[in-house]
């Protein structure tokens, strides 16, 4: 392949909130086509890392190189434009829009109709609208909630909302899909279904960055895992090695110093 094998490089990314170092010089590399896990105890800085990556926060130092190009991470929509899509830890759907409309909003980025098109409803615009609807339907099928397409997003079950959020993120045609604790609050069956979905997404060519608390899910799903603790990366390797790393065990189970 002519494409570079590395999709995302984070170089010494740091973010402070007042005196709190939420991220302290975190560097990591994500390879194209893998499922990369980011784990760590609560407050370790995982979501902060996500927010820096997707432009919601501005990191004080360090930078990201995405697909060979430095990220100008000053606006979230730009991150989406270069191909980073995300979901949120606390689901952020457009609650009063239907499932399909949510996904159609995701197509905004890759479509062009403006006011003129909307007002004249010319052939280009109508064709584009039809394509948007079709693609949104496909994506709802893909994540398995097409039967709820015309329900308001907020009326969907928790698991379906997670799926809808993934469908909306996929609608932006990402190269990297960043999932922030997608299994939070799910039962065993739902988590299993999610695992199958994420594997499928990866197989279809989208690299996945996964923040997750469910260690079993991460270990089963991810090719490589990084562990954050107090804003620092303490470990990065394949799951089997990470699991045995003494610093990871200490971070999760508490150290010898009380």
């Amino acid at each position: 392949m002519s494409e570079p094998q590395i999709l995302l490089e984070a170089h010494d990314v740091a973010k402070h909130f007042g005196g709190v170092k939420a991220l302290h010089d975190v560097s990591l590399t994500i390879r194209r086509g893998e499922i990369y896990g980011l784990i760590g105890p609560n407050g370790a800085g995982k979501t902060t890392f996500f927010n820096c990556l997707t432009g919601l926060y501005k990191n004080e130092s360090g930078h990201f190189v995405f697909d060979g190009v430095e990220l100008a991470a000053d606006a979230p929509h730009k991150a989406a434009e270069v191909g980073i899509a995300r979901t949120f830890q606390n689901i952020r759907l457009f609650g009063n829009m239907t499932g399909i409309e949510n996904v159609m909003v995701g197509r905004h980025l890759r479509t062009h109709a403006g006011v003129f098109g909307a007002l004249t409803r010319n052939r280009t615009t109508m064709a584009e609208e039809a394509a948007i609807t079709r693609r949104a339907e496909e994506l709802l099928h893909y994540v398995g909630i097409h039967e709820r397409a015309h329900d308001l997003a907020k009326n969907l079950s928790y698991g379906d909302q997670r799926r809808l959020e993934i469908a909306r993120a996929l609608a932006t045609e990402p190269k990297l899909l960043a999932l922030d604790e997608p299994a939070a609050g799910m039962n065993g069956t739902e988590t299993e279904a999610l695992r199958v979905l994420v594997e499928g997404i990866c197989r279809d060519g989208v690299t996945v960055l996964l923040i997750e608390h469910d260690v079993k899910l991460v270990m089963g799903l991810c090719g490589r895992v990084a562990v954050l603790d107090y804003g620092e990366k303490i470990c990065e390797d394949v799951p089997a090695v990470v699991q045995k790393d003494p610093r990871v065990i200490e971070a999760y189970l508490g150290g010898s110093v009380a």
Partner: protein
Amino acid sequence: MNGQVKTSVPWQRHWLGVLLIAVVLLAVPFVAALGGQAWVRIANFAILYIFLALGLNIVVGYAGLLDLGYVAFYAVGAYAYALLASPHFGLHLPFWVILPLGAGIACLFGMLLGAPTLKLRGDYLAIVTLGFGEIIRIFLNNLNAPINVTNGAQGITLIDPIRIGEFSFATTSTLLGIEISGPQKYYFLLVALAILVIIVNVRLQNSRVGRAWQAIREDEVAAKACGINTRNIKLLAFAMGASFGGIAGGVFSAMQGFVSPESFSLMESITILAMVVLGGMGHIPGVILGAVLLTALPEVLRYGIEPLQDALFGRMIIDPESLRMLIFGLAMVLVMRFRPAGLWPSPQRRRELAEHSD
């Protein structure tokens, strides 16, 4: 959404409805004229307010940006027309030049207001827009020195009516054997403009841009994460709303022949906003209803309460103008208490609020 509702109605009934509305719209100015030309003018203002309210609906109803200074754009459009078609500067440009120009200038002002306020939401945005509206009015009031631009509080008089060739909208003329007065001509012009703004509203609602507005209204952070350039899309809402305000202002100028800053007070902004909120934010029929009700209310009071008080007490006890504000306020409280989604909300919005109160 709207499209689906329409297709579920059989086409015969659909066309029957359109025909009925057309007949009523045609009849209104002639029926109203039986009571005097004043009633035609009232009908004109009702339609002008429909136009304004639907312009504001784009900003408030669709994009969810609470704008309390909408009247500023109305003022900009009105003064643009007044300055370019009156003896004040000796300019007499034709209306088809000024109306688009006025819309453009108002649009520019919309962006001027939009740009610095993009990061503000809700109450904060409301305060800034309110200030902006007042700034424009105060400017108009004081821009008579050192160079007399706006003629200050006296306003500008002798504004040209809309004129197409020899056909003037100010005078009565006979068309196809029917006598049509000036206000009646403006009525038809305003109806045409109102239909235009309704089409714009409908088409924007069900479009890529309309969805982006709705997404911003729902959750701005998520909208950004979806790749929506929220800055541009919000500016677009401000600009579009402002342009309609500008056009309405131009027609207002031409129709009245006179403008002064006092027509563009904060109260006017609030009234237009109240039409949108009272009727049903984001729902076109609701907004139209709100505009008609709030325009008709003071007139009904004027023509109804005075004679009523005379008959009951033999003299005037309460001035209709103060009664108007009282009823206005009471109506707002009642509507917000019992129909928070407005008198005629969109089915979707009604669901939203119903579930919020659970």
